[in-house]
């Protein structure tokens, strides 16, 4: 499905990705882990076209998509739950969700998807008319995921899923993602390593812009050296 080959990118002088290769097979769920500032978000921004790759390739179903503008990439069925939620704060929940279905593939089945998403997140159903900016953090995160699902993505990318969320909500969200997983391939970035490893099949470990380790999630979970690597010292 998604293949990244020797991807490099810089923000100004700062080389944030220094040659990263990874693979997300169809129907799988893959985690990218790493300390703060390791470059996880940068990787996602590069895949989704927000950050320019200086070299390397990103292939989606065999098609090269690196350095395409974000709206073109999203047209190919890539949806993102970005770091920091990124609500349209002054629009209500319903309009936020509908914006998720902006592309034809989402608009075609708008009503049906809306119903599905609302049944996944019943909290949102009660708040359709509320301004998104006034939702609580957890609700916003759910809305952000719901919005991404509205486009009926083939690849769902999630950045810092559990960031700032209470554990119960995190569990709730992972439960929802498990359901969605049946029809969508997933790439997720997490800080809470354990959560991520428990919920994915394969994982990559990022350290200052390069891959330091990779392996099946279950193997990594069992590895005692992981914590040290993750904490950076």
């Amino acid at each position: 499905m998604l293949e990244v080959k020797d991807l490099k990118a810089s923000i100004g002088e700062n080389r944030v990705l220094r040659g990263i290769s990874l693979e997300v097979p169809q129907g799988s769920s893959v985690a990218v882990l790493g300390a703060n500032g390791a470059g996880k978000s940068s990787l996602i921004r590069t895949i989704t076209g927000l950050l320019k790759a200086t070299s390397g390739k990103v292939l989606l179903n065999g098609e090269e998509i690196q350095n395409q503008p974000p709206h073109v990439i999203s047209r190919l069925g890539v949806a993102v739950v970005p770091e920091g939620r990124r609500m349209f704060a002054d629009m209500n929940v319903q309009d936020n969700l509908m914006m998720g279905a902006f592309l034809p593939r989402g608009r075609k089945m708008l009503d049906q998807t809306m119903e599905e998403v609302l049944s996944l997140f019943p909290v949102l159903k009660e708040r359709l008319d509320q301004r998104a900016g006034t939702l609580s953090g957890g609700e916003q995160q759910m809305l952000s995921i719901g919005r991404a699902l509205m486009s009926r993505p083939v690849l769902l990318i999630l950045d810092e899923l559990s960031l700032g969320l209470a554990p119960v909500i995190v569990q709730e969200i992972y439960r929802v993602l498990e359901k969605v997983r049946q029809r969508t391939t997933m790439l997720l970035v997490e800080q809470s390593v354990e959560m991520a490893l428990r919920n994915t099949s394969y994982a990559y470990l990022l350290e200052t812009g390069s891959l330091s380790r990779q392996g099946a999630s279950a193997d990594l979970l069992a590895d005692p050296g992981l914590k040290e690597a993750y904490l950076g010292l």
Partner: protein
Amino acid sequence: MSLLEIKDACKRFGGVQAISEVSFRVEQGEILGLIGPNGAGKTTLFNLITGAIQMDRGSVLWDGREITGLRPDLACKAGISRTFQVTRPFGRMTCLENVYVPLLENQPNLKGKARQQESARLLGVTGLAGKEAWLAESLNLIDKKRLELARALAAGPRLILLDEVLGGLNTMEMQDALKLIKSIRDEYEMTVVWIEHIMGAIMSVCERVLVLDMGRLICQGEPGVVCQDPAVIEAYLGEQADA
């Protein structure tokens, strides 16, 4: 009397309660670590202390005097200076000129040659020797962080707030940087509050650590103790800490 005391600070951004009911003290001469997950409100706390944003509720006491909501420039003159997580150099000015600005404001007696020497010295201390005439925008990220530090020092504060100044350093450089942070306290006699995600660094330098999560202060104490705290493990370090 504590150097700085925060009482019941609260700050809300739209739907996000960035800081809620945070109270703590900073004692003269300590190096206080501030950790917590992304978005926990660490930077926001700095912004509240320096008056860059106004708190909804709560107060800041500086040297026993209430300074809540003091404008950033006045906070700086009162003796609190800071660095920025996302660096904010004066891009189209040279490094030397960057350091002139705080010197000019905070040590107006320093003129001409003396000012130049002092600036050059500060750039040297922070590892920017030789780059005095470079435009700040042409520095790489690490050097920009060094410049941030040099500028903050030049303001001659009693309290310096460091926001992730170590990011991107390798192990060797990190050792030097840690020495520098220690010397800020020992030689310059400044008090330090320091945000960093690199636990090893925090543990090796700080006497005391505060842990923020979702805007709340969930734990404070000696680094070793804090690391064992279940709430901290849950919120920040990750459950595998015991592995």
